């Protein structure tokens, strides 16, 4: 349905998209995932013929977008990051304009009514787009993309700026559309991609960093044991934390230790990662018995899509699996991972400063963060 071969886009010296190739089959929902500035929008703009590629080829339904742009474009419905709405028009007038612009031959009234019902904008058809809320504008943008029933839908961050209810509605709608259309969807919101897409392409710094279903991608790079520990020290102070981290780091086969939030009074969580095929659970137990610490929780964590995303986009692992990271623990990720409004926010933090910060954190602050996390992931 869509075939992209060695697609490259350069802006002067800057390589925005570098040699991307992929195929999307009919009826597939493909998710483009990547941090801001990874080249998602640039790729989508090339797919839809808004900008041209520096080199490479794009085939939409077998038609090259540069050779026969009009025919190729007639197969695409596009919702750009900012919906292309004329705010001085009513919804009805605007959709009528897009209907004419796309030279749609379907019965006008019935077709527009069907789309408005599908996107739930029937009740605002007579209103000026200027006066609509962000959510409605987004839906009008989506409606516009659906006109002429194009076999390919390309949606650039369709849920940005919407409230949680609207996000769920739009996702449900996209899933529904995926039954009859080939959909490419971009997002930097992980749960969204996971919820909607059959297949995921992770783009980072203009290249395809991973391609496959969430499970396939996970299988490729999950070669480590990772767990979360909750250990109670003897003094119930931050001193414990330092001692525990230091002791854990001394264990054989440990790759990475990081202290997490204070979960109970004076008790901290620790993210621990070990080398492949090394079971460190017994060693940790042994250690704690010797030191007189109590393990309150031990939870093996599977790699979530978030972990994968972070690993790939932060250059922590190469998904092809060829290179095994053998960096010392100090070089391990120094990122503060937070989920904010359903979007993943990764900030680089100096390890030491971070620890200091955590120590100075008021006790209730951690609960607040917890709430946010849960809320964000719905």
């Amino acid at each position, binding site marked *: 349905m869509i075939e992209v071969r060695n697609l490259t886009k350069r802006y002067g010296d800057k390589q925005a998209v570098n040699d991307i190739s992929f195929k999307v089959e009919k009826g597939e929902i493909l998710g483009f995932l990547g941090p801001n500035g990874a080249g998602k929008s640039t790729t989508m703009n090339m797919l839809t013929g*808004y900008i041209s590629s520096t080199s490479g080829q794009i085939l939409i339904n077998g038609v090259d977008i540069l050779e026969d742009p009009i025919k190729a474009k007639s197969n695409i419905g596009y919702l*750009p990051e900012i919906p292309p709405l*004329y705010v001085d028009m009513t919804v009805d007038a605007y959709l009528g304009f897009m209907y004419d612009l796309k030279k749609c031959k379907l019965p006008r009234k019935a077709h527009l009514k069907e789309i408005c019902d599908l996107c739930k904008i029937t009740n605002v058809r007579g209103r000026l787009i200027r006066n609509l809320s962000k959510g409605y504008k987004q839906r009008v943008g989506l409606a516009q993309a659906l006109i002429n029933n194009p076999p390919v839908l390309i949606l650039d961050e369709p849920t940005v700026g919407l409230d949680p209810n609207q996000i769920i509605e739009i996702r449900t709608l996209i899933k529904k559309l995926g039954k009859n259309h080939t959909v490419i969807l971009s997002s930097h919101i992980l749960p969204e991609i996971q919820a909607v897409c059959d297949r995921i392409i992770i783009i980072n710094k203009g290249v395809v960093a991973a391609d496959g279903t969430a499970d396939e991608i996970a299988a490729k790079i999950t070669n480590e044991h990772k767990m979360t520990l909750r250990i109670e020290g003897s003094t119930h102070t931050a001193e414990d934390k330092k001692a525990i981290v230091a002791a854990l780091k001394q264990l054989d086969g440990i790759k990475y230790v990081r202290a997490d939030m204070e979960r109970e009074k004076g008790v901290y969580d620790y993210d621990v990662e070990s080398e492949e095929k090394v079971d460190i659970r017994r060693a940790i137990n042994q250690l704690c018995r010797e030191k007189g610490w109590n393990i309150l929780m031990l939870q093996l964590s599977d790699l979530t899509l978030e972990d994968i995303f972070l690993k790939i986009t932060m250059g922590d692992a190469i998904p092809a699996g060829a290179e095994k990271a053998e960096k010392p623990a100090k070089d391990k990720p120094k990122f503060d991972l937070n989920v904010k409004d359903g979007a993943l926010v990764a900030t680089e933090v100096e390890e030491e400063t971070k620890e200091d910060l955590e120590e100075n954190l008021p006790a209730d602050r951690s609960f607040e963060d917890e709430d946010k996390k849960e809320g964000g992931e719905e």
Partner: protein
Amino acid sequence: MGAIYRREMGAFFTSGVAYVFLTVFTLLSGIFFFFGVITSGTTETSPLFSSMFIVVLFLIPILTMKLLSEEKKNRTDQGLLTAPIGLWSIVLGKYFAALTLYIIAESVIFIYSLILAYLGDVVWPSLLGNYFAMLFLGAAFIAVGLFISSLTENQMAAAVASMLALFVLYLFDSLASNVSIDFIRKIMLSFSFYSRYLEFTRGVFDLTGVIFFISVAFIFNFLTVRILDKRRWG
């Protein structure tokens, strides 16, 4: 092209640009008609038309300023450029919308000629010649304004730049007379919009003038298409 033409015509009226344009055009042409023609006690319309050059020069940028700059600013160009239509359809749709509004404004001059016909004898060939000269002048100016609108995201910048550009074209004659090199002066004069336009007001229907204005319109529309195309390769 039809869809874009209809949308732009609608936008002219919803945004109020059409009303401003039509009002100012009618007002100024009325003043020139009254003081240049009626009070002189003549049916000779040339003073009206020669004065209208400068009015058109300042009014047309108001028509064209938004046409492409706003699209770029609001990112609505993404909708147009990803729709299954060619660049020429986009440019010409907008061009003809502006031209239509200009023709509507110009038609007020027919009312003046009816008034004149009531008061005395009108030399119709001369009047019609003038009328068409003004039409072709507008056609060329709109293409220039549309081109400048494609260069910026700011509609005020587009308007000011268009006025300046058209004003420089207007000054070409006096600039040329100060150029001592014969060769360059001739080239400059051959690009003079004003002297070509004045030919018509003298009652001469100059076919080369018509061809000149139409060529300018074509060239600038072509350049606008190139600009839109070039942006995709940026």
